[in-house]
């Protein structure tokens, strides 16, 4: 930054504003809560189970509160704040135990860490609990990389993959960096960049049904650039994107598929399921 700019600014803005600091990570805890997310719960439960296995492999005891459901994001992004708030409150109640919460989906983790405070902006007491949840919430790959500091041996056959990162996960949780770094530790995995990699797959929750024409054009472009990589498969750490991309591939009668990153990682490190 040229000094000129800051010197040119009047008093209130004379000083270079502080940049947000990197998140500080705690030591590896003994136990965590897994928040499965509603999409994984119903459509990709194996990915949730693989997340549990990956955590257990690091010697962590995993709790799965039976009362959990959805983070509230679908209603929140559609404009139904009141409904979203009540669902969010229910999750807050069961995640209050004070131990880390690991989420196998960047956008849901982002909901906890960025948007709960907007939902409860007018409830100071709840806001305190939200702050605690914010500090304890980790996206799965972030947790494995930064908190568990995993050291893996790749037990799988050589493979080539493309990585898709959900937009909110990328912008709110830096998930793309964490996933890339984790995949980089796997010796037999070659990650291939795809065209317009950082561009949205077109899901956007209810956007996909409110604007099916535009959303459809976006997911078509995304699936084409994924397939153009010649990779064996696509991996992603977000259930919504996965449902969108796989549903579109299936509709197009393509054999190429995406898989949840948790399942891919578990297969690589456990050697299970490798063909």
């Amino acid at each position, binding site marked *: *930054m*040229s000094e000129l*700019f800051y010197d040119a*600014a*009047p008093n209130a*803005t004379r000083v*270079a*504003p502080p*940049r947000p600091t990197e998140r500080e990570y705690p030591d590896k805890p003994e136990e965590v*809560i897994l928040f499965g997310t509603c999409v994984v*719960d*119903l*459509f990709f*439960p*194996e990915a949730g*189970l693989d997340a*549990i296995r990956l955590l257990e492999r690091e010697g962590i*005891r*995993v*709790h*799965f*509160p*039976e*009362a959990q*459901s959805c983070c*509230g994001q679908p*209603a929140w992004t*559609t*404009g*139904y*704040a009141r*409904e979203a708030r*009540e*669902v969010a409150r*229910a999750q807050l*109640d069961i995640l209050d*135990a004070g131990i880390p919460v690991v989420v196998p989906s960047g956008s849901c983790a982002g909901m906890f860490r960025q948007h709960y405070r*907007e939902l409860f902006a007018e409830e100071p007491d709840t806001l305190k609990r939200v702050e605690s949840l914010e500090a304890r919430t980790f996206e799965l790959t972030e947790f494995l990389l930064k908190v568990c500091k995993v050291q893996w041996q790749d037990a799988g056959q050589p493979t080539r993959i493309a990585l898709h990162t959900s*937009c*909110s996960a990328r*912008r*709110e949780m830096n998930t793309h960096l964490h996933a890339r770094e984790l995949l980089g530790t796997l010796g037999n995995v070659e990650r291939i960049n795809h065209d317009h990699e*950082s*561009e*949205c797959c077109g899901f*956007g929750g209810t*956007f*996909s*049904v*409110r*604007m*099916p024409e535009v*959303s*459809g054009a*976006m*997911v078509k472009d995304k699936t084409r650039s994924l397939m153009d990589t010649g990779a064996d498969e696509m991996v992603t750490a977000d259930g919504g994107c996965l449902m969108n991309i796989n*549903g*579109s591939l*299936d*509709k197009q009668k393509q054999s190429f598929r995406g898989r949840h990153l948790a399942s891919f990682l578990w297969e690589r490190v456990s050697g299970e399921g490798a063909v």
Partner: protein
Amino acid sequence: MNQRIPVTELTSTFRERATGALADQQLRTNFRTAMDSLMQKRADAFPDEDEREGLRELGNRIKARALSQLPDLLEQLEANLTANGVKVHWAETTEEANQIVHSIIEARQGTQVVKGKSMVSEEMEMNEYLADRGIECLESDMGEYIVQLDHEKPSHIIMPAIHKNRHQVARLFHDKLGVDETDDVDELIQIGRRTLRRKFLEADVGVSGVNFAIAETGTLLLVENEGNGRMSTTAPPVHIAVTGIEKVVQNLRDVVPLLSLLTRSALGQPITTYVNMISSPRKPDELDGPEEVHLVLLDNGRSGAFADAQLRQTLNCIRCGACINHCPVYVRVGGHTYGEVYPGPIGKIITPHMVGLQKVPDHPSASSLCGACGEVCPVKIPIPEMLQRLRQENVKSPAEGPKVKDGGAKYSAKERLIWRVWKTLNTSPALYRLFLWGATRFRKLTPSNVGPWTENHTAPVPARRSLHDLARNHLSGNGSAKGGQ
């Protein structure tokens, strides 16, 4: 230029227009090529991430400070401009703004107007208003000139004719101006230039926009690359500047970082070819410049956004167009799909305040909330947050009193009921588990057609067993399935 159908008479919906645009391969290629290039230019203009983020934060604070004292700054601007000899006019609506402009031209018995690029004049539909009153308005910005020739509206706030490639422009010039068809860009520009040069000398009035109105000195700052802005504001005997009330900043020091943010974010330029700073009409001892300078300050719904602490951030905008260039929706549907003057993310958040949500009911929904816009905004407008808030105002019932002009355009009792059911399901663990059990147990009964979703996807079929089920089994061995409750 009054053969064009005014935007205000559009009867199609966003989705209908999007469908048409998506089917136009040429259009999609034109936009993709142009936007890819603009994204690269911006990236190249900010090689240092720390510098960029520091500057964006600074830009945000400068605009926030200006807005926090907006009424005072506007009064100061008026006082200083008046002292400099510039006549200041206030317009609450576009109709009032047009009347003011018309009366100034009428007082000079003017018949010809030459315009530098101005989005506010587009907002006013000034060309049509004046044409109906026998006054010819000629656009002098090359892009604006092209869309005016083709009776179109701009499809981008910085590059009005970006939806056309050079072959299409060549054909247009050939058809409309009777010149030989040439694909040579320099030759095309020369053709336009020859027509326009003459007009600058003939025009009675020059109209321009304003990029920054500086309160402390009473200065109007205008950036441009073609020299047409300087010609429009200096050659004709009268100069009328039109701008929105949010363009005022406190002092010249504020302009330095904002200008850098503007030109680098827009076209990746360190600075524009021309930076005009207009402070007064021609003084007695000066040889050139206009005899009269006027500023029309337009509200047109901006004070509505200003009144709301959250939505006020919309007025930070310095009209660089970076959000548009980075938008995955805009790049596919193009600017005309938005049906209003301002397209893309900024259009989605500012237009509702101007024309009301009833007129643009789909604007808040036409986003996947991917966040690319907010990430590049040079003054850090949280655009996804603005969209999200507009969605809330758009689904409110009349009784709930939407806080945005003509809010509640998407209110639906049926949809509200669906979300209430969703809420009940997700706040009652027993019901939720019953739902999981039913959905997995009867997964084969999932309908293959689930509305708009199955236009692009096969229907999602629930897994055989839910994660609740799998986790309970897996964890029961070590007795840790309890947690929380």
